[in-house]
């Protein structure tokens, strides 16, 4: 920070010095990543924030990093976190061999998916169909696509906009359980539904 910047900040300390800052937080699952900072003049090189719950101040030639400490987040920062959309949620539905008919244990999950979509304003749904390795690649591409379309079609009957839904068939390319060719496998016959 320049001498003038320090003076300006010192004058503003009581009001809270208005400097650009970055706060690194733990991720929702507990882990956390890193953030590399580069000041605009570029002379200080790269400063890496490694610890969650730390704050970096940008603006000088070298960013300064310190723990958030007892003061924690500012009110506006807490409000921002609260306004983040919820994380995407994924569901897996299983199918009877060679069909677009749901396996019995998956029938109840449709309602959970419907409720999840309904609970999210502006929800988007991404549906990916898969098969096991029984049959030809071409047949499985088509079957996986039909499985995905079946779910999108069902959601459309519940009033959800098709323009907010997409479906794709991955055939037997992404096996959940790696098997030899022409092996019937209940875990691989599935559709993954991502609700965002």
């Amino acid at each position, binding site marked *: 920070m320049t001498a003038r910047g320090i003076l300006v900040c010192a004058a503003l300390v009581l009001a809270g010095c208005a400097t*650009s*800052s*970055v706060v690194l*937080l733990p991720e929702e699952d507990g882990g956390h990543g890193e953030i590399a900072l580069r000041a605009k003049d570029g002379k200080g090189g790269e400063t890496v924030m490694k610890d969650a719950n730390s704050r970096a101040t940008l603006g000088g030639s070298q960013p300064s990093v310190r723990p958030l400490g007892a003061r924690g987040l500012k009110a506006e920062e807490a409000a*921002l976190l609260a306004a*983040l*959309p919820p994380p995407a949620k994924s569901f897996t539905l299983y199918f009877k061999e060679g069909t677009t008919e749901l396996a019995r244990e998956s029938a109840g999950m449709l309602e959970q998916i419907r409720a999840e979509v309904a609970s999210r304003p502006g929800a988007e749904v991404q549906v990916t169909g898969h098969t096991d390795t029984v049959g030809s690649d071409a047949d499985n591409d088509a079957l996986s696509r039909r499985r995905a379309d079946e779910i999108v079609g069902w959601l459309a009957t519940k009033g959800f906009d098709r323009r907010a839904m997409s479906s794709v068939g991955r055939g037997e390319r992404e096996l959940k359980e790696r098997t030899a060719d022409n092996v019937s496998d209940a875990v691989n016959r599935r559709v993954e539904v991502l609700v965002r």
Partner: protein
Amino acid sequence: MSLLMVRTTLLLAWLTATVATPALAEIGRVKSSTGAANVERAAQKLPAATGQELLAGDWLETGKDGRISLTFVDNTRFAVGPDSRIALSKFEYNATTQKGSFIARVERGSIAVVTGRITKTRCDDMPVQCGMQVETPDGDIDARGTRFIITVRK
């Protein structure tokens, strides 16, 4: 259909896919907004209504009472605070490889970010820039898979 017609159709389809799609590909959607909140696209100013589609190059703009929450196709999530101006300068994402490059610019205001797939898939083999960068008037940050808040001084 004659072979020539098939070829012409295929060529047209290919041209449409390669020329038109990148500019128009949806990169995310507005999930909610309050107060004065807009998406600026070239000379257009669109209200940041729930479900509004976002394209690379769009600007997010909020007034003193404005907020926007949004998600991107790689599952990145944003909450934009009041009195903000933020550019979605670059967003390229390959849904199959889950690799891509995202550059946002916070000109003023504040933003909370939970990074998505773009920062979670290693891309050492990519010749071009990859991952997520956020530019501010005071410096740039490189987000390596995490949750963070940026506030740009007024």
